[in-house]
């Protein structure tokens, strides 16, 4: 049963990590603009589309 000490500490450590992750995500403004982030992820990087007739 002595293993309980380790298990309890391990579970606290995991929970503590999640608390840390939550505080960090709030601090780094990740909840500031939920709509924007949802759109930004769908945008490709470095897409250059030229519709111009000049290039055709």
């Amino acid at each position: 049963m002595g293993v309980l000490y380790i298990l309890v500490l391990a579970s606290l450590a995991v929970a503590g990590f999640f608390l840390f992750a939550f505080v960090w995500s709030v601090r780094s403004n990740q909840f500031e603009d939920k709509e924007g982030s949802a759109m930004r992820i769908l945008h490709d990087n470095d897409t250059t589309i030229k519709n111009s007739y000049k290039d055709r």
Partner: protein
Amino acid sequence: MNGIAGVTGKTMCYHCGVECASQGINIGDKAFCCEGCKLVYEILDENGLCNYYALQEHPGLSQIKAPRQGKYEYLDDAAIARKLYSFTDGDHSIVKLYIPGIHCSSCMWLLENLHKMHKGIAESRLNFTAKELTIQFKESAVSLRQIVELLVTIGYEPYISLDTRQGKPDIVNRKRIYKLGVAGFCFGNIMLMSFPEYLSGNHEIEHQYAMLFRMLNLGLSIPLFFFSASEFFSSAWAGLKQKMLNIDAPIALALIITYARSLYEIATDTGSGYLDSLAGIVFFMLIGRVVQERAYKSISFHRDYKSYFPIAVNVIENDRTVPRSLEDLKERDKVSLHNGEIIPADAILLEGDAYIDYSFVTGESQPVRVKKGGMAYAGGRQTGEKIILELIKPVAGSYLTSLWNHQSFRKNKSQTNNRESVIHKLSKYFTIVLFTLVAFTALYWAMVNPSNILPSVSAMLIVACPCALLLAANYTNGNILRLLSVNGLFLRDATVIEQLGKANHIVFDKTGTLTSSNNSYAISGHELNDHEKDIVWNAAKHSTHPYSRAVVAWLDRRQHIQADAWKETPGQGITARYGNEEVRIGSAAHTGVAPGIADESAAVFIRVNDSVTAFRVTPKMRAGIPAVITSLADTHKLSLLSGDNDRQKATFAALFGSNAELLFYQKPVDKLAFIEQKQAAGDNVLMVGDGLNDAGALQQSNVGITLSDDVNNFSPSCDAILDAKQITQFPALLWLAKYGGTIINIAFAISILYNIVGLAISMQAMMKPMIAAILMPASTISIVLISTGISSVVAKKLGLSLTGRQKHDNNHSVP
């Protein structure tokens, strides 16, 4: 799919999706409605940014009303530009700009790719919810004016006002979010550590493990009690200092007793205490407060005149025009204003033909002509040509701005609402009843078995915490706020709900509130034929005079015809010649109508050759207003306050009924005084207005609602903003707010039932931690379900939308 333009026979602008009126503005197979839209396309194309059009169809904003060249000249002034920076080290600078036109993912994509259009821009990042663009740039490579002008050319004009200040503090209360996170962490873990004791039944768990769990619980309870729960203590203390028993006082007492008893049990090794229940209560109450604290990031409820005024104006000094920051304006400064610009302070007209649109300041619908040497008041908007004014008062001392010195602007409405709130009254009775019960129980045990006094009394105080009442209020308000906002009514905070429900007298403003900015036009006399309409349109369209514009708006778009001669005489009218036909638009004298037979109510006369047409402009009532008024008249007293003339009095008198008071020619101060007078007579006044002229009345009233065509646009300081498109829902929204109080009472009654069960057990000194741990979440969850459930059902019965999904279409309106 209807993506192919031209199927319907109409050509849509490739950029903005507006129907093309004129042909011939094309690039390849793409048609545009105007040169502005075409220009935007060309710029984007040159920079390889045509992905903009791939993400959304017709994502752009119509460029027909492009701003004047040189409007942003004042940004070249380093001192003014600096005010807008949120950071600068002399070269590398960061600026935050508010851009009202942002509406879709294409906007976001384009604005975040600004660096492709100018190499001086290092990075741009958009906060979509707040419509705020943060731009990092090198001042040596690009000036702020160039950036703003670039944004203007691609159709995203930022809004820069006197109120735009550097380093505005973040208003969002993040501390509560951290508290909630910590409370959640402690609650989950304390529950986990408490399970072994719940499940052990009659067998005691081994003492060494029991001690381990208790110690860990004790450790976890420290941040919970001293950090997460701190706001309950500080609020209770603040209330007590003002000799007031608010709802947080009994809650704080319950928390302290629970904690003290738990500490005592653990210290004396007689039990494991009630730390699990304590953690649960704190966690759920914090969630309730976060739910209720709904922030609309792109909406501001605290605007005064500063948000409307520009940051700088052009001042004429030694025959040169220099931009000057509004704060540095002095009396006797000569200011030059272009079409559409706002007069910053009371002034005298020196030069030009001034037609001042005071609709925002006084509610008057027609622009006022000011003669040379006449007074022009701050807040008016020049329509027409450039004018030069000499200021006679400083900005803060003007007639309009002095309204903000009224005492009603000094009180904090949130605080007063909160103090009068029903939950504080209920909690007072609750506390009194509870203490009476506690006293009786203590008395009983003192006679029967004194050793039971402390356990039973403390258990009662723990169980009978009015947190259920607080939760009922928080969750009901939170859900009602959400329901109201998906239906177009945005409240400043939850305290407004109760005031909305209590209101028994509704006061409406006329111009801009009951009537929309669109006018309806009527003609009498000669009926114009198609060709005549064409030439009248052509004659009127070159003039900036408001009546000429009204004529153009009435005729819509017509065939273009080149005039052979065109002349505008200020204060008189237009004379134009097309071949051998002559058009005159203007006053009776200008068009040669004898004053005696002239139609008094006509705005202008149109004379084509020898036939005369009288043209009338009347502000058009918003769609749905008659139904709204009729339905509100059954339940509320109604009044109408208008700064405008009483030309429409008969129409409104018929609509409002005989009991309503209709007052015209009301100045902003008169409106405020009217509200004060009604309040003194015991009415709870709800004011619905729109402009700065209503600012005083909105502030003085119990609830001030601003009606706005675009909720992200600019409305004066108020308690709530109603989307004008949703005006037909207004009576239903008021009913929902009214039912809010009833729902809170129902949820409260249920929580009382739980309290009776809990109290009955604890009065007999039989309360076990496990029973407390079951009762607490059971009551919490049922209250959350009941309060949100009933409010949603009520909203549905009232015909309101529950999710607001259907309203997520792209808004292509021109800002």
